[in-house]
């Protein structure tokens, strides 16, 4: 979706704010927001694409003025409400009023290390041959889906060259919306800066973007 999260190439955000010896967390609430987000992810109630979509559907004025852990918190509230794990009334009071819903699993302290070390690989077995090979010239699609996509706006309808074939990966555009993983080939695509930004681009700039097969056509 063309939401506030799709930031590549936007202008006017000012200088990058650097902080020496930056801590992981700037306040206790950030630690807690981080931990509950990971722990709820560990319940298997949604996938990573659904959670990214929950964050990017925050209204742009909120997304752009919230710190990242605030975005995570608002995203987590939304996911818990969408999955009916909690109610609006409960969220207001901060206490349970209706019984819990069954969930697949609860992440316990003794499982944390193993769960993190395992992660959630996104590669899947090949079902059909890849449509493109290294060296193929492609053009990204002109598309503006209202749902989740990982083709950034700045790289749409642009010619590039396949530089890597990563294998078959879960397709975020369907997986985010409960329409299944629909695994498809994932490629590393090389773009010239001038093909993306026009003649004003830094002439020495190239971009590498990981893109799924349905985003691409032969050029």
């Amino acid at each position: 979706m063309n939401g506030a999260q799709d930031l590549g190439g936007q202008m006017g955000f000012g200088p990058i704010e650097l902080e020496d010896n930056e801590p992981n967390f700037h306040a206790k609430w950030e630690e807690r927001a981080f931990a509950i987000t990971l722990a709820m992810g560990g319940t298997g109630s949604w996938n990573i694409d659904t959670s990214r979509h929950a964050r990017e559907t925050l209204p742009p004025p909120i997304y752009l003025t919230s710190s990242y852990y605030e975005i995570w918190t608002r995203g987590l509230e939304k996911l818990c409400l969408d999955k009916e794990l909690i109610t609006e009334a409960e969220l207001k009071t901060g206490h349970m009023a209706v019984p819990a819903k069954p969930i697949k699993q609860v992440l316990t302290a003794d499982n944390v290390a193993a769960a993190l070390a395992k992660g959630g690989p996104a590669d899947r077995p090949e079902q059909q041959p890849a449509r493109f090979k290294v060296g193929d010239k492609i053009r990204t699609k002109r598309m503006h889906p209202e749902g989740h996509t990982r083709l950034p706006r700045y790289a749409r309808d642009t010619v590039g060259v396949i530089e890597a074939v990563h294998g078959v990966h879960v397709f975020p555009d369907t997986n985010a919306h409960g329409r299944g993983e629909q695994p498809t080939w994932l490629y590393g695509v090389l773009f010239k800066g001038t093909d993306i930004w026009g003649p004003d681009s830094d002439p020495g700039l190239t971009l590498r973007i990981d893109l799924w097969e349905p985003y691409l056509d032969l050029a």
Partner: protein
Amino acid sequence: MAHNHDHDHDHDHSELSEIELRVRALETLLTEKGYVDPPALDELIETYETKIGPKNGAQVVARAWSDPAYLERLRADATAAIAEFGFTGRQGEHMVVVENTANTHNMVVCTLCSCYPWTVLGLPPVWYKSAPYRSRAVRDPRGVLLEFGVSLPKDTEIRVWDSTAEIRYLVIPERPSGTGGWSEEQLAELVTRDCMIGTGLALQPSELEAAQ
């Protein structure tokens, strides 16, 4: 307001207290429902505060600089080569290394969210997740690098890697000169978080002395 604002200089009081209350309410509710286990929450925080951070990546880079056979393994399958250190899993399931050379500088961004190689770098800094970096890294990386104090020669090519999928990129910076015969432990001291994102260069031996 009874809350502790010591670490929250970036937020005004009303904003902080609202989010603080909001997080507390959500955590309490999720705990009462039995969806989250409080000791697991503490363990998650502790893990990223003490065990998983850029020192991991620095070890990988130092070995890549020291051991040509290891570098070959990184190039062939970085996920497996990094797993030799025991660094595996969440947000490092599919690793790729990209090597800086005299002619090419690599820089990593996630314009769409905050994708970052947690297994080797830990949690991303705030600037990496913020609009100024995410918007500008892909269009004006040379200008971005200047803000990090890095001025590249005009003819150095810059390649920006936008982490749009689950592939995670680790930059192998150029090995500083004057480090012949250094041990991996010594070399790792030169490897900063930023140089593994591509927003910095590895420290020179003289900078290391100045930092100590």
